[in-house]
């Protein structure tokens, strides 16, 4: 029972982290039609920026500075890269971000080296939060959940309750009309792309020290968040939320269970599970869990 409870909490905190990543990806995709292949690279950059800032100043400033840096970089990429590629079509845009992912990974290799860096959980957040029937739950996991939920609530509020949020929502479906009403749609695109990058950066700040900060982290998490977007249904935020929690819990349970079948343990199969889920879903429900279109 205690095992189940702790693992569920771990799964939810991992799922929320995944949702911070996939929400930005989904938003950018539904707004601009661009599937940002470099999204996970901004997650990695967030972690590395946070490491650099936390070494120099401390973790708390890093929590603010690193996502801002990632977001600013994202805006620059949109302004001087994507906008240029836009006229060549969506495939070119996708390929541009694909190349960008290469570049960011290599830049990280060059600047921080190939080994993992020592990006640690701050002392204040180190230790158990509470005990459930003898096993302890770390504070940092709770903190991760807190940050994710706070972030998601503020995103939701910004999208539905503010002026710029309304403009973004309108630009999702009717960009021409929004432009005709005098809004600068390319700037909205830039803001959303930067916002998605900042969101990924924030996920990197809190994920980088919970897991490992190394040059392979983008390639490890990137395919998973793409699977989430497909499983949830392309462009559906609610679908991405459900899929993130599902895959987060699935991964956490699979890694920690020691059942085995025909000589292969569940933990060994764990890396395949998300992809298997995607394949099965595509066969039986091609539009994804909550997707609306089948194209």
């Amino acid at each position: 029972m205690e095992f189940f409870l702790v693992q569920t909490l771990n799964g939810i905190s991992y799922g929320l982290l995944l949702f911070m990543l996939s929400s930005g990806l989904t938003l950018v995709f539904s707004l601009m039609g661009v599937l940002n292949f470099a999204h996970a690279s901004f997650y990695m950059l967030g972690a590395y920026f946070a490491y650099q800032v936390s070494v120099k100043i401390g973790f708390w400033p890093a929590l603010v500075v690193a996502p801002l840096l990632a977001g600013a970089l994202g805006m620059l990429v949109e302004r001087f890269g994507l906008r240029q590629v836009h006229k060549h079509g969506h495939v070119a845009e996708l390929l541009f971000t694909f190349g960008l992912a290469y570049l960011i990974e290599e830049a990280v290799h060059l600047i921080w080296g190939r080994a993992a860096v020592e990006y640690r959980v701050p002392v204040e957040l180190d230790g158990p939060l509470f005990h459930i029937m003898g096993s302890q739950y770390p504070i940092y996991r709770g903190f991760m959940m807190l940050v994710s939920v706070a972030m998601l609530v503020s995103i939701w509020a910004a999208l539905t309750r503010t002026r710029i949020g309304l403009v973004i929502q309108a630009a999702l479906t009717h960009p021409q009309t929004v432009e005709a009403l005098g809004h600068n749609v390319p700037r909205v695109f830039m803001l959303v792309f930067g916002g998605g990058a900042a969101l990924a950066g924030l996920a990197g700040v809190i994920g980088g020290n919970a897991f490992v900060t190394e040059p392979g982290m983008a390639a490890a998490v990137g395919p998973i968040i793409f699977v989430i977007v497909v499983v949830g249904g392309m462009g559906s935020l609610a679908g991405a939320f459900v899929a993130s929690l599902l895959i987060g819990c699935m991964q956490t349970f699979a890694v920690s269970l020691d059942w085995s079948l025909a000589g292969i343990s569940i933990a060994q199969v764990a890396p395949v599970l998300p992809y298997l889920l995607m394949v099965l879903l595509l066969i039986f429900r091609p539009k994804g869990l909550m997707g609306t279109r089948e194209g």
Partner: protein
Amino acid sequence: MKYAPLYLGRWMLWGASALLFAVAPHVFKGGFALTLLTQMGTLIIFALSYNMLLGQGGMLSFGHAVYSGLGAYGVVHVLNFMGKGSLVFPVSLLPLVGGLAGLAFGLLFGYVTTRRAGTTFALISLGIGEMVFACVLMFPGLFGGEAGISTNRVVGQPFLGLSFGPALQVYYLVAAWCFLSMAAMFALTQTPLGRMANAVRDNPERAEFVGYNTQRVRFLQLVLSSFFAGVSGALSCINFEIVSAENVSAIRSGGVLLATYIGGVPFFFGPIIGAIVFVFFVVALSGFTRAWLLYLGLFFVLMVMYAPGGIAALIVMQFPVIRAGRWRELLGPYALAALAALVALAGLIGLVEMVYRLSEPGASTVLTVLGVSFDARGAASWFTFAAVLAAGLAALRLAARRVGERWSALQLELQSRTA
């Protein structure tokens, strides 16, 4: 354009490329050149098979290495059986085995991936690629885990006097299969299926109205493409005598995408150029610098931004100008732009190498260029290279504008003459 099956120029082109395959190892002598040529031949098949998806079928795949890699695994097992003496099969026909293995997996995975087109296809192919990679690591008995399975290509009696021990024989095996595959893939573009693949790429809705099942066209195209991917996997297995998880990895899939795109997706011969350039980048450049992947990535991004038709399009663009005999007028602006690009590149390389030297423990921080040494720890060197880069970029901007002006003036003139 008039349909001309016995078009003389085309026969000459194919004859010339066959000749090129035959004489290449005698022009570029030495073991290193031979390795390079063999790898180029293998990658040419792989890139052409990839372009059957991306260029001809409009399917952007991020998991094409699955088919070449699994084909290679099939071949490595057959080779090992042959080594044990429990199977007799000519080595020179092994690529057929690899191709059939690739085709079998194409049938299996293609059924899932080709249900959707566009971005979703790209994502599913990525997912399948990751899944296969994870599976390969999961069953070390069958796939040899991280270390992979090694083999020996010299097995059994020499077939037609070929033992495939010497690298030159392997090169000619690769060259022969490469030429055959090139011809077969070109022939496929001329078949009704090849044409329908183009139609499905350009306008799936209309293709459906005409009465074609777009899903089936994509599926057939992918299955055929995975056959050729398997052939190339088999050749790389014979060449390297080892197959590991890296053969099915995202790195390989990304590599073939880069090679194909750099070469030029809209043209049949684009991937051939791309494969040659890519192997050169990977094998030759990686000997010089640890940052080669950064340069390759940068090259790719610049191609996506400024030359989406790849190198092939840049070449084809020049044809009308050359035919009109006006290419001399462009030489000046081109030379200027190339010079500016070189200056910018020098500045960039300087900066990148200094970053690398600072981060790599134990590396010397002093960089020597043209007899002048720069210390990466001093601010002066950073300023120098940054200034070189900035100057190069500024000059490139000016030069590019001049090229553009000359180019459009020339085009206008040529158009008005034909009109």
